[in-house]
């Protein structure tokens, strides 16, 4: 995950406070529940990248002669496959 759980919670709290303060949303949720809900959305969004990473790892592992893990070749291939899969899924990295 690109952001730590604490950072996601921190961002969610900031967003929740700002949108309530500026009257952009109204909700019957408590502040805490709203923060948790926003955090869940951020988490879900970032988790897509983790899923792509897992797909890339699986693709490389299926190769007949995969490059040595963490070698320059491996890193190059990882990035290339990651970009391809992300593009296919319409996900901006």
């Amino acid at each position, binding site marked *: 995950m690109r952001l730590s759980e604490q950072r996601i919670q921190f961002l969610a709290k900031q967003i929740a406070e700002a949108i309530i303060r*500026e*009257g952009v949303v*109204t909700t019957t949720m408590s502040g805490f529940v709203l923060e948790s809900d926003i955090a869940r959305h951020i988490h879900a969004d970032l988790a897509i990248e983790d899923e792509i990473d897992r797909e890339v790892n699986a693709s490389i592992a299926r190769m007949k002669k995969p490059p040595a893990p963490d070698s*320059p070749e491996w890193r190059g291939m990882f990035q290339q496959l990651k970009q391809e899969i992300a593009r296919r899924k319409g996900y*901006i990295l």
Partner: protein
Amino acid sequence: MSILFALHKCLSVSGENTRVKQAAALRKPPTVLDYVLRTDPNKQARIQSLGGVPGKTITGRVVDEAGNPATSISVQSLNSTVEGGPRAPTSSAFPDRSRFRFDELTTGRKVPKIIPEPPLLSLLRCTHIAKPGASTTISLLRGRRGPWPISGENSPLPRLVSQHMRLRPERIDAMAARITAAMRAVPRITVHDPDKLQRIIRRIILEDMQREVELEKEAVELLRRHQQQITMQSMSYNTLLEKTKRELARQKKIVL
């Protein structure tokens, strides 16, 4: 003052770790090295391993990104564990400077040092010996701009500060749009102004990422002032940078 104290603590801890690693390196001498010299995000030169005798020699060659010999780089070995700091580097024994061989590695703790010709960089180093077949990155610790022989262009040398944010602005835009859409789908939330909601989400995430970049710049500046000590103790620059960033973040109450 407290930052310096915290940094000193970091340095001490890293020093201990380094000593532990050094002891491990002595027990398990290196045989094969494969280092990566990053020049810019798209170009790199590699030091390819050609083998060696465990604990005695390291041999290899430097190639550019296309795998061709990078003759404009010379390789020097540097024993950074000797008391009093680094000793004079040993030049590569091969007349062809794309190849190198170092003998008498009795300490099992040689740090390859790469200096481009002409020596525009004042220091490049790697802080640990790779396991056989493994690779690692050599980071620029100090240097100045100039023509870079590998890339063949006047490109900035490797960046000390990751000028890219952890999340790119384009990605933050997309995230904000998705989070807005997701929030609109929640029955207990009524969104009055979706565009404004998206803008707020974008702004908050973007500002947070920018704060991290600023923090990292500050950490780099702090480490730069302690460069000599870091070099002499053969510490991992990246580890120190991370620790310094975390310490600064703690003091500034920034969540990383």
